[in-house]
């Protein structure tokens, strides 16, 4: 049973990097039986992973909620738009997940999204998203362990 948490995003654009911040925090905690990767902005980082039972992706997601709002959804919930690839930068998360299926080695994928507030230049999370970090980590750990998030959560 292989479980993987992959944080994606750009650390230089404040809340855009929330996935990377979560990956770093999880690497500190070192949850057993879970591999953690900070994939940054590397479009094809998921190609480095093979044979996964459960993949949890953490990224910023614009869903119309308040900053720090946590979402849980699956790749098929995201609309795919058609585009012409000119650069390797045009490869996005969905393309990467789609390509992984060619090799058929991914069984379940869940995306944990976090509503961003600040997407401007800077390395720090906004106060709102920063304060939500413990809850985001709980949600991710619960997801990867198939349990309910621990403690009481004020939403």
């Amino acid at each position: 049973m292989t479980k993987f948490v992959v944080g994606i995003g750009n650390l230089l654009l404040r809340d855009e990097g929330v996935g990377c911040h979560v990956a770093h925090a999880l690497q500190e905690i070192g949850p057993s039986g879970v591999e953690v990767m900070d994939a940054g902005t590397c479009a094809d980082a998921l190609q480095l992973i093979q044979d996964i039972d459960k993949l949890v992706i953490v990224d910023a997601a614009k869903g119309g909620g308040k900053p720090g709002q946590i979402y849980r959804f699956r790749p098929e919930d995201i609309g795919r738009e058609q585009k012409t690839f000119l650069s390797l930068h045009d490869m996005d998360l969905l393309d990467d997940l789609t390509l992984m299926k060619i090799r058929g080695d991914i069984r379940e994928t869940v995306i944990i999204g976090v509503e961003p507030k600040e997407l401007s230049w800077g390395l720090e999370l906004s106060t709102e998203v920063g304060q939500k970090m413990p809850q985001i980590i709980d949600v991710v750990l619960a997801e990867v362990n198939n349990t309910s998030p621990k403690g009481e959560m004020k939403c």
Partner: protein
Amino acid sequence: MGKIAIDPVTRIEGHLKIEAVVDGGKVKEAKSAGMLFRGLELIMRGRDPRDAQRITQRVCGVCPTSHSTAAALNLDSAFDIADKIPDNGRIMRNLILGAAHIADHILHFYHLVALDYVDVARLAKYEGSSPALNSIKDFISRGELGPFVPRYEGDYRLADDVNEQAVAHYVMAFDMRRKGQEMAAMLGGKMPHNMGIMPGGVTSTPTVDVMASLLWRLKELQEFVDNVYLPDVVTVAQTYSDYFEIGHGCGNLLAYGSYELDGKEADLSKRKRFFRAGTTSTSLKFDQFDPTRITEEVKHSWYADSISGRHPSQGDVVPDEKKKGAYSWLKSPRYGKTVFEVGPLARMMVNYAAGNPAVKTLVDSTLARTGLKPQDMFSVMGRNLARALETKLIADAMPDWILQLKPGEPACVSYKLPEESSGMGLVGAARGALGHWIEIKEGKIANYQVVTPSTWNISPRDDKDQPGPLEQALTGTKIRDEANPFEIVRIVRAFDPCLACSIHVVSPKGHDLGRFRVC
């Protein structure tokens, strides 16, 4: 007269935009633009200089390894230790960069360029027993065409058996890509965004175990390059040989040089490197490279004219998004006020002109096999071919580098942070000449400038209204079918453009994630 705009920007904020005006079946005028204000330099100011290696890597998810190398070389020079890097550190940096470049070039060919020439959709009718090809067939039958569409139709020329083989190699290339990344991670701690390359050297020391693991992975990569990648590129080149006549470009090539062979020479422009620095043109006359001749011009960029024509070490970022006549967020880097193309083609032909024996032998033998002249390399197919030849040269050089490592000996040198200093780091990134410049005051970064390869290649018109390299490569191209302008995308992709990573926020269907709220 029609205008063809290829603009993936509609979906993500800020990428590459190409506009071609077609008149009488020919591109009359072309504009290439970067639609994202980068401004990375602005967040560098006031920080600890050592942050540069960490921060600049995050500017790009495709070539972070090259940024870490340029930043380390830049800081080596600013810290006055460029001639003191231990051999282990120098070689391990070469190996991390080399592994990343091999992986990158393979990825670029199979997962971006090949789709222009290899017809993956034809596999829907595949009836053989290859597991790889059936995995593609199943993939298509599930309706998941993903990165294979949209595409332009009407010019897929490979015979069925050759086409099938190329698609099987497409699947195989994923594993090769992975092996290259694993090699880089073994020395650099992690990939992407390695932690190993630092000012002074690298953070780990080589061990016999790591050397052995590198060697067997490299062996597999070499076999793939020799028996699969290079032959596939040659097959595509021969089948689409008219693409040696398309996309000529500006005809001037510039290379900064890469892979340090000498740890004792502080001056990067004099240091002995595996691929040497220099310039050349279609005459194939070699000229020495002088880094003081680089300028960045902004007449057609959204920056204040007051900063135009400066050397990058004096560069500044003063946005002016309402400027008349401007159409790009990229500046126009120029060398001696002339337009120069950078990239694998530049590295190969500059080294060819300089008489680099390994490069000359390989280029000549490949040209002889395909019946081409060196000047034919200045083309769409020449760029694709040069990238594959470079991959082979790096892969073939790396076993020796691995064997030169000395377990137990140091891989980095200590240094003192200067209060006042300046530095320059130049390297051949996968996509071409990459430069970092730093100015340190009171122990902090006072100014940091990054000039990327795609800024050179995708640059807009300059102060003298000279179009950039990609714009020149597009201009004059015959377009067979305006509804399917595959000539344009093939020209663009052969340059392997890479603009700064933009905001990759996932946006769900209808922008309403309400029903997915957790807390």
